[in-house]
């Protein structure tokens, strides 16, 4: 797989064009996405917001290569994700996406180190370098002393930091965080968000899916979805001015 090649300079990290996703539920067809076009470049920090039913989750699954569009195209670093097989998608997720979930989604029986090195296991990385990289990632999230603890021996905030370490370890193109503070108290949530901010500062591309404004406020750009379409797409410099938020974006 040539998936690890760096994208051509200037090409966007992800490029969605007229993406439509339709589900068939019983007799009715649900159009979760009705033509979404979105471009996100390298080292952007984007929040995707929207009420439930807006297609937010579907878009996240699409970006995360867990799902493929019914029509339209999705290029991740120039690779056409829409036409890939299950196993090819697994490889793409493995190399290009770092997931952070609301419910942490750590393997309960595996210790921190094992959880963090798991993406590298599936990438086929040899044991020694896998271990080294996993320990580096664990150190980066400040859990070096917890490497051999099981998830149930950790606090919620610590678990989420393990998840972040796991997302980071493969050096992905995008970190995709789905309500990363949803299961945390607000103080711990803030800690986690500061961690994302630091990752962004060090050059990481981050996409946050959230419905909380103060979480979205950490991002530099906010994309709002409604009824399967992008309702607004603004840089947060503008949104921070309360007056501008009420008016339509653009010049």
């Amino acid at each position, binding site marked *: 797989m040539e998936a690890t090649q760096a994208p051509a300079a200037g090409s966007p990290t992800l490029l969605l064009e007229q993406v439509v996703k339709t589900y068939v539920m019983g007799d009715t067809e649900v159009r979760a996405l009705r033509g979404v076009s979105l471009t996100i470049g390298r080292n952007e920090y984007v929040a995707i917001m929207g009420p439930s039913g807006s297609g937010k989750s579907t878009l996240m699954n699409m970006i995360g290569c867990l799902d493929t569009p019914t029509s339209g195209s999705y290029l991740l670093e120039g690779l056409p994700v829409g036409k890939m097989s*299950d*196993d090819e998608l*697994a490889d793409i997720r493995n190399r290009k996406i770092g*997931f952070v979930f609301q419910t942490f989604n750590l*393997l309960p029986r595996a210790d921190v180190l094992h959880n963090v090195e798991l993406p590298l296991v599936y990438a086929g990385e040899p044991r020694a370098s896998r271990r080294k990289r996993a320990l580096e990632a664990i150190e980066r999230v400040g859990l070096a002393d917890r490497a051999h603890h099981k998830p149930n021996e950790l606090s919620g905030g610590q678990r989420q930091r393990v998840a972040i370490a*796991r997302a980071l370890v493969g050096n992905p193109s995008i970190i995709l965080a789905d309500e990363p503070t949803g299961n945390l108290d607000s103080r711990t949530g803030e800690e986690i968000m500061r961690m994302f901010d630091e990752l962004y500062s060090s050059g990481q591309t981050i996409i946050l899916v959230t419905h909380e404004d103060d979480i979205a406020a950490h991002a530099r750009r906010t994309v709002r979805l409604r009824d399967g379409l992008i309702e607004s797409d603004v840089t947060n410099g503008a949104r921070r001015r309360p007056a501008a938020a009420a008016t339509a974006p653009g010049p």
Partner: protein
Amino acid sequence: MKLGLDIAESARISLSALMANKGRGALTALGIIIGIVAVITTMTAANGLANNFKETFSVIGADVVYVSRMPWIIRGPDEFARFNRRPQIELDDGERLAQALRGRAVVNPYVGTRELVRYGSKTLDAMQITGTTDKMVVMSGTLPETGRFLMPFDLQYRRAVAVIGWEIKERLFENRDPIGEKIRVGNRDFRVVGVMAKEGQGVFGGTSTDVEVYIPVTTFAKIFGGRQRGFDVDLAIKGMSPDTLADLEYEVIGEFRKIRSLRPGEDDNFSINKLDTLVTAYNNIMGVVVGVGLMVTGIALFVGGVGVMNIMFVSVTERTREIGIRKAIGARRRSVLMQFMFEAGVICLFGGLVGIVVAWLVTLLINATLMPASLSPAIAVAAIGIALVVGMLAGIAPAWKGARQDPIEALRYE
């Protein structure tokens, strides 16, 4: 490289999953253990019986062809009636056959009956009395432990001499030296000239030299011949050159047909017997017995396998979310498939290993009570192989169910 890592991760995960559910794993393995014990015991018993059979009938000699009036295996009364009309084989026939095969084969005529054997005040009922010749030593290769065997002059002069089996010696003479003593066989006195070495008895009974009395066949004819309807002997023929048994058989048939003056096209009015005939009959019978045994054990294994499959379905369902996580971070179908196949394999391998240990104990018990038996390494290896195959077969459907989970659905699973 990648496959190796997959295997290592599969091992790590399946072992930790099994350790988290030790009781369940052990109970599931129990089904496999029972199946494997059944398979090994059946195979070991069949092996033991076969060895025993060979040992018991080794007296017959694999390289000896027998000419008799009747075949050793007769299927039903009709066949018996037909064979019973055949002319008897006389001592003279044996003489002529020996002449015809001179330099090529040794011919030993023999005949048996049961008679009372007495020494002093001790009597033994219905002992096997065999009339034979000095050639018997060539056929079986067994020699007396003490004294000598029958000699040509014993036959020529129809001497009343006997070579007795080890057990007969024990029971009649205890610690005394029997050589030169007179024993009574039927209503004649015989002088003991030799004692055969102890042979022992197999499971199948059969003939053992231990309880036989050997006398010259000529003497036998003189004493017992008149009492029976004529005098019918069997001829044992052993080739002197290392030709194949088939060649010897062919020659014997040709020569004996000449002796009997049979015309071409006429059926043989005698039978050719050999160890092979018995072995074939044995194999036919044992084939059925072992077949039925293996079928029953197969059912035991099948039930065990279904148990494993069942528990694997439970395991896959329980770990739907784990599958979702693994797939989200890049596990391919193959990796998930292997993980669960490995788990099923480990359960069955464990079952197989425990099964071998249990079967080994059962074998020791059989060996101590029923018959000589030992667990052969080949059977143990086969059992492990069978256990693994059962594991793979039982694991494939649940593992495949896990492998093709949609990661989105799986992650949503509570």
